[in-house]
């Protein structure tokens, strides 16, 4: 029996195995995820506003747009889950306001004697869940489309909100939450916020360890990125039989060199030190990656390397790099008076810069072999000619220096590696171009923001690109998926440490006299960090000391965790260097800093996005959601309780609406009768931007969260950039369209084989177009 099976599968492998591609690495897997378009869009939007607006990238600006995003995303995540389950809830927006009004009215105003918040708040939750259950049950029992049923509840809720508000208070404004009994307790939960500057690092305690105090987030970020990179290598490349000890030593030396360079960069602030630090880090990283790959991974055969691209491809890439450098230098010099430099100059220069960007893109396309090199070369000459008029003598000398360096590097690349994969060459050329650009900006830019931050970001991007090119050149791609990590016992140790940490830290906080919720959150975060540190150390040890093939995924988890910790500590704590800049000591000896706060809404949003993703991707319930949205009859026939799944989803949406309603109520203490109406439209848009299919069956909860962040960044960024806000909706609409189109394009390319979404559910397509438009139109009028 077993023999025949083996024979059969062997025969099948012989017959069809050759055409099969290699094992898909983590990058390819990531590219097929539904939220990838939204993720790229979010990065693009962030970069755009970061470049054009000074306050956008600061902690204050981040807190500002995260707040807007959180109120949207808190609802968009469950709405996305419901959408994947094949249904809509148009009452979700009105429901947020309804729960707030019910809570305040019940607490204060019924017959003059209120019930108090201890009864009113749970009652409003019960009401929300009941409406959710009602929506779900009605949709299931009657088989009516959910947008009709919930449209009914939507209007009923609007009417009831206005009617009851007028009935009890004679006004459309329901107020007096802060006078209700039990306000302090519930405000401690829904009204809680994190005042960033009240939680300073204890500067006296750490004063001798300046590095830990100030730049712990930067080191965490770099460590996280390194872990992500090595994790990706582990999952992508094949291990060699016996490790090469010499190469391992080179890797270690490279890591030390990079670390020294990084510390030097962080410690010194000046143009020269940036040069030295940057070169040290780059050399260290590239040597480290080369050593690591030689130490661990099998070398590719000659055939796997493929053929070298033609000489013109290098020339085109190099030419593009030089031209970009020339023009950036010219533009920057010409607009020295502008603080931001980049877009501060005249319109003509802006158009000119766009033209340059286009030439760069064309050059890369040419290098990939899609078009003939003549076009970008011609374009480069055309753009380069007028750029000469921008030049002054000192700059001309620099351009010649940098251009010469770029060409020299390209020539070296070309002559030293005649058998290199085309993609490796393109990565190398592009990263070289970015390096040239980065150093040009560093030497020419007037503002510190461009000189330091943009330089660092560009250098980091170029380094990652170059490192991946080095790894691709040196390592053979793996043909089979690596086994899952064998982490059993160590995971238990970490979990135990985490639980113990949560308990101990919570008790310590409580003993310090802090509020319950604050102590719990703080204890949970600290316990989580403890468990994470144990996990990261275990992963590191396993990677370096054992021959376990499955460490790649653990490394990626570690990297994501480190990056998140880094961002969180950057946002939540004032670093020592910031302290000197933004705070001052008053005459009474007290430290005074501008306040930046994060409401509990941001925490709720992050928790929702994480839990929603976990539910969808990892649990049985998640599989059922996708199944009932994708093919309900099929799901039912294999035993999925479709009605129960959908009803639960409706109740999750209304439960989230309750949380949102409470957050709004405790922030404002007085609520308009029409608050939240029309927002269901936004929730759906944000979910679609995040890669969720309107027709159901496919999507991502995390994507909906990212979509909400995009919305928050755009709506706040327009203000930060001081663009005329009259045009706000035009810009918003255009950017949203672009986001969705990028999303579609990326997904289409990544999947290669066409999805059958439209073919399988033709009945729903025309319906869904009608859905958001109708209630939103009515609601908008009421709102504005």
């Amino acid at each position, binding site marked *: 029996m077993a023999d025949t099976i083996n024979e059969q599968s062997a025969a099948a492998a012989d017959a069809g195995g050759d055409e099969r591609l290699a094992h898909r690495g983590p990058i390819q897997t990531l590219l097929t995820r539904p939220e990838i378009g939204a993720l790229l869009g979010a990065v693009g939007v962030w970069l755009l506003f970061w470049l054009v607006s000074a306050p956008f990238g600061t902690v204050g600006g981040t807190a500002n747009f995260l707040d807007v995003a959180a109120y949207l995303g808190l609802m968009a995540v469950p709405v996305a889950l419901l959408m994947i389950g094949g249904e809509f809830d148009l009452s979700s927006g009105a429901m947020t306001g309804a729960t707030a009004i019910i809570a305040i009215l019940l607490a204060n105003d019924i017959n003059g004697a209120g019930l108090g918040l201890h009864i009113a708040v749970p009652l409003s939750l019960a009401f929300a869940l009941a409406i959710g259950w009602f929506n779900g049950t009605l949709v299931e029992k009657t088989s009516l489309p959910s947008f009709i049923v919930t449209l009914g509840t939507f209007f009923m809720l609007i009417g009831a909100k206005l009617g009851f508000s007028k009935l009890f208070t004679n006004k459309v404004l329901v107020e007096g939450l802060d006078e209700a009994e039990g306000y302090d307790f519930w405000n401690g939960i829904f009204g809680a916020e994190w005042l960033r500057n009240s939680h300073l690092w204890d500067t006296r305690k750490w004063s001798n360890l300046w590095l830990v105090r100030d730049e712990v987030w930067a080191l965490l970020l770099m460590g996280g990125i390194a872990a992500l990179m090595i994790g990706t290598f582990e999952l992508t490349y094949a291990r060699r039989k016996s490790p090469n000890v010499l190469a391992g030593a080179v890797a270690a030396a490279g890591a030390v060199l990079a670390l020294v360079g990084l510390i030097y960069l962080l410690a010194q602030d000046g143009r020269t030190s940036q040069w030295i630090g940057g070169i040290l880090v780059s050399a260290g990283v590239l040597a480290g990656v080369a050593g690591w790959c030689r130490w661990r991974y099998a070398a590719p055969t000659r055939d796997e390397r493929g053929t070298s691209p033609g000489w013109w491809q290098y020339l085109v890439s190099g030419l593009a790099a030089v031209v970009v450098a020339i023009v950036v230098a010219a533009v920057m010099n010409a607009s020295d008076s502008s603080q931001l430099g980049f877009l501060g100059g005249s319109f003509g220069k802006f158009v000119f810069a766009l033209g340059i960007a286009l030439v760069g893109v064309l050059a890369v396309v040419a290098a990939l072999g899609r078009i003939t090199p003549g076009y970008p070369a011609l374009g480069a000459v055309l753009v380069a000619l007028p750029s000469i008029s921008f030049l002054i003598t000192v700059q001309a000398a620099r351009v010649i220096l940098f251009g010469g360096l770029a060409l020299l590097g390209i020539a070296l690349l070309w002559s030293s590696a005649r058998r290199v994969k085309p993609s490796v060459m393109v990565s190398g050329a592009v990263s070289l171009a970015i390096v040239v650009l980065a150093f040009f900006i560093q030497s020419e830019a007037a503002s510190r923001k461009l000189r330091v931050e943009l330089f660092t970001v560009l250098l980091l991007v170029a380094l990652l690109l170059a490192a991946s090119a080095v790894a691709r050149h040196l390592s053979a791609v793996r043909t089979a998926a690596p086994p899952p990590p064998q982490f059993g016992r160590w995971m238990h140790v970490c979990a135990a440490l985490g639980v113990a940490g949560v308990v101990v830290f919570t008790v310590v906080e409580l003993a310090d006299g802090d509020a319950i919720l604050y102590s719990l959150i703080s204890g949970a975060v600290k316990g989580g960090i403890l468990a994470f540190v144990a996990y990261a150390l275990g992963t590191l040890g396993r990677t370096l000391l054992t021959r376990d093939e499955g460490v790649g995924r653990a490394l990626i988890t570690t990297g994501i965790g480190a990056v998140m910790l880094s961002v969180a500590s950057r946002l939540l704590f004032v670093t020592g260097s910031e302290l000197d800049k933004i705070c001052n000591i008053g005459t009474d000896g007290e430290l005074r800093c501008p306040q930046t706060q994060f409401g509990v809404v941001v925490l709720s949003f992050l928790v929702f996005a994480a839990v929603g993703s976990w539910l969808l991707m990892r649990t049985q319930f998640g599989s059922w959601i996708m199944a009932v949205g994708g093919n309900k009859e099929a799901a039912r026939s294999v035993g999925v309780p479709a009605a129960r799944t959908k009803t639960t989803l409706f109740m999750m949406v209304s439960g989230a609406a309750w949380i949102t309603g409470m957050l709004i109520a405790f922030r404002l203490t007085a609520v308009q009768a029409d608050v939240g109406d029309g927002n269901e439209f936004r929730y759906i848009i944000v979910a679609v931007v995040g890669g969720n299919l309107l027709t159901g069956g496919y999507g991502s909860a995390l994507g909906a969260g990212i979509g909400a962040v995009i919305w928050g960044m755009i709506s706040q960024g327009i203000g930060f950039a001081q663009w005329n806000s009259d045009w706000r909706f035009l810009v918003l609409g255009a950017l949203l369209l672009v986001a969705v189109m990028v999303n579609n394009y990326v997904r289409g390319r990544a999947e290669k084989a066409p999805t059958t*979404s439209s073919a399988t559910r033709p009945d729903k397509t025309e319906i869904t177009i009608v859905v958001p438009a109708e209630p939103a139109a009515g609601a908008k009028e009421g709102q504005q």
Partner: protein
Amino acid sequence: MSTDFLELRGISKFYGNIIALTGVTTTVNPGEVTCVLGDNGAGKSTFIKILAGVHQHDEGELILEGSKVRFAHPRQALAAGIATVYQDLAMVPLMSVWRNFFLGQEPKKGMWPFRQIDIDEAKRIAKEEMAKMGIDIRDTEQSVGTLSGGERQSVAIARASYFGARVLILDEPTSALGVKQSGVVLRRIVEARDQGLAVIFITHNPNHAYPVGDRFVILQRGVSLGNWAKEELTQAELTQLMAGGAELEELQHELAEASAN
């Protein structure tokens, strides 16, 4: 008397005064393919539904492993190891192969409330089971919508056999497929048979039935024309029976006369 695994003796079904099926007698054994042939309206669907527990027979006996049974509900048939792969396949096209494979019966790990699907295990098993069917799925993460019709059929068959099916009923698995794809599915049927499953293959195409079948039942307008073992029948005879026997001869005769005139 040798005991057959599943035996049908004179199974009949009436809907009011309509006779849907009368006198179907056949046997189904592990490692054998029993083909049920018939034109549209011949009673094939009724036959499936009786075995799958959707309907109950009114006359005759259904004998499973020596004891009389009567399935009151599809779950009972499933519990007895009789799995049906319907024409529409019961697949969710936008979901991955492994999710479809385990839908409704996901393997889980961890303690509540952290209970989650054991994805590695699910992927491994799905890949293994598909390999047993002779299909080397490159990536079980690939969505079912990207598979060909024959491959989808294979996923459904592999799923049924993994979840303990002993009798596999295939409802017109080749009817919607092209010539090449049909060949693939017929091969799957043979492989399921070789794995020791009893297969009931419903079709209206004698050319598909004859090469893989061990036993043939032909239905016509609700009446069973007979129950033959493969040795008792040639492919030509089967085709002729299937096409209506005497009626076809009459038609040939008429046509011959017409062309003579």
